[in-house]
């Protein structure tokens, strides 16, 4: 299956990004052809783009012909910052619902707390919830919240703990100077952090990133998105929406 995964993957993005990378790694292991679209230009993704608000459904629409399935992680700034105009929220979520219809399978992953300003409800969200094949939440609280959203049926909602976060937790704190076995403690942290990096790098390799070698700092800090012209995007989206509406 050709799968488009949308969300932040490492190096940036912390734990959530690593979890998404693990999801991708698992899919690749299962034989899927995966490409990643990330809102963060520093991500080791196949594509990066501005995915705020309406830009997200625009991109999804554009890429839909190349993929069978979509795995979208709703995260901070994807697609909304903490505040968004009600109308823009409604149009964006409605458009997302439309776009979901362009994929044969849609997995919606929701960070916790669910980063949708204004909550999960509203008529505009109905198609989005209805067309998601799987809705994955992080905990019971979010599970109950999503169940009350329009168009959601219980059997499609799952609570899934982070996928592959390996047994050994990363020790991020350094020991205090007075600890008796300070060297052992420091080395444990060093090895643990390095192992986490190694996993992230390995995920990058799995993702087909172009070589994991040292990313140059210039390339890494570049935030330039290469994108199709607004005109062509709008054109494509409108024609999709028209087709969708007329098929109803």
């Amino acid at each position, binding site marked *: 299956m050709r799968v488009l995964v949308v969300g932040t993957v490492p*190096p940036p993005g912390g734990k959530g990004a690593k979890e998404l990378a693990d999801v991708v790694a698992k899919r690749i292991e299962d034989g899927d052809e995966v490409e990643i679209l990330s809102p963060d230009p520093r991500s080791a993704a196949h594509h990066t783009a501005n995915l705020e608000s309406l830009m997200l459904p625009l991109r999804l629409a554009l890429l839909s012909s190349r993929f069978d399935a979509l795995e979208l992680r709703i995260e901070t700034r994807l697609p909304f910052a903490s505040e968004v105009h009600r109308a823009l929220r409604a149009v964006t979520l409605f458009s997302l619902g439309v776009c979901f219809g362009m994929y044969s399978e849609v997995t919606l992953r929701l960070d916790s707390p669910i980063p949708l300003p204004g909550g999960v409800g509203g008529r505009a969200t109905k198609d989005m919830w209805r067309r998601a094949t799987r809705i994955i939440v992080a905990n019971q609280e979010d599970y109950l919240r999503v169940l009350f959203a329009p168009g959601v049926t219980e059997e499609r909602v799952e609570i899934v703990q982070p996928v592959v976060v390996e047994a050994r937790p990363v020790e991020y704190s*350094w*020991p*205090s*100077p*007075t*600890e008796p*076995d*300070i*060297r052992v403690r*420091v*080395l444990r*942290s*060093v*090895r643990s*952090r*390095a192992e986490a*990096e*190694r996993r992230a*790098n390995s995920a990058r390799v799995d993702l087909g990133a172009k070589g994991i070698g*040292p*990313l*140059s*700092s210039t390339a*890494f800090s570049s935030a330039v998105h290469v994108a199709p012209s607004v005109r062509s995007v709008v054109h494509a989206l409108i024609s999709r929406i028209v087709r969708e509406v007329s098929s109803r």
Partner: protein
Amino acid sequence: MAKSQAMRIAFVTPRYGAGVVGGSEAVMSEAAWGLASRGHEVELLTTCARSHFSWENEFPAGISHDRGIVVRRFPTVSAKSRLLAGELERRVQSSEKLTEAEQIAWVNGRFRVPDLYLDLLKCARSFDAVILSPYLFWSTIYGAEVAPERTIVMPCLHDEPYAWLSIVSKTLSSSAGLWFLSEPEHQLGHRVAPGMSAHHSVVGAAVNLPSGYDTAGFRERHGLTRPFVLYAGRREDGKGWRQLLGSFSSALVGSDLPFDLVTVGVGAPNVPEGIQERVIDLGFLDEWELPSAFAAAEAMIQPSVNESFSRTMMESWLAGTPVIANAAGEVITWHCERSGGGLSYNDDLELAQCLRFIAEAPKAASALAERGREYVLANYTWEIVLDNMEDSLGGLAAELRR
């Protein structure tokens, strides 16, 4: 134990004097000065070479006096056929099996000091002990043949292709005594030369406690405005310099590590483009300036796996500076573990995390360095090491008298 009995001792080392960089050479000269200061009659036989790359005669031949010892220099003679020398070197490096004749040709291919050998033939038996170091040079391989019954080799062994040549094994086995600088080197000695003399010991090596450190002055004199980590030693592949450049470069990428890499020593640093702004070569530092380099550094990195002791680690700890060592180096890791004061890294990512620790937890890093300092003071002062050497020399002298 003949500690109080003055002895006549000869030290034979391929290089000695100002501008010479090398652990074995440093231990030999300081041991010679130290034993002389304890009342022994010490002569040091060496070549006129300063550089271990060219072996060109830079110092004048002849006799001089330095810090209580007599220094006798002999000119080197270079290989007849550089082509053959290069070919043999390549074969040794690739661990090919060489015949004994080829091994001898290899030893002769670097440099020879026939006059030193002839001098030893004449006067070796006038000494109570002839101490030679390191193991892989003409001066030691040939010198050990002259008076094996009173020869002590301080091999400074590393687990490298040279060490496994049969002529090395023979040299170590035929010498009356062996001095090792660390326990892992001692164990390697047993593997390399199973038949080595029972008269061997781990004497260790020592570093001098500087009278003081001038960190601010050091930074100012060398225009160092940012925090830095230090590499001190020979800039060559065998010492892990190139690997360190690669690892340091990786550590910098995508990180906000605040450190420059400052290097002191000899050899062309050949810093690749891209990190040239972050790698600062101060070249060879005078003896009075070097301790301040260690003290001014946030950490000292020891990337070399070819160490039989690692003085720079000791100098760093002594200066209160933490040490980050390549985990593949048996001896340097041994020091880190034994002291509880050093970190070790297995790859670039771990080195990056070690550097991050130094940057983020300076107090904990200082606490580590303090353990290292205690370790040096407890084990590697000249007082202790010279006692060990005198014990060994006394034992050898007693055997000779029998």
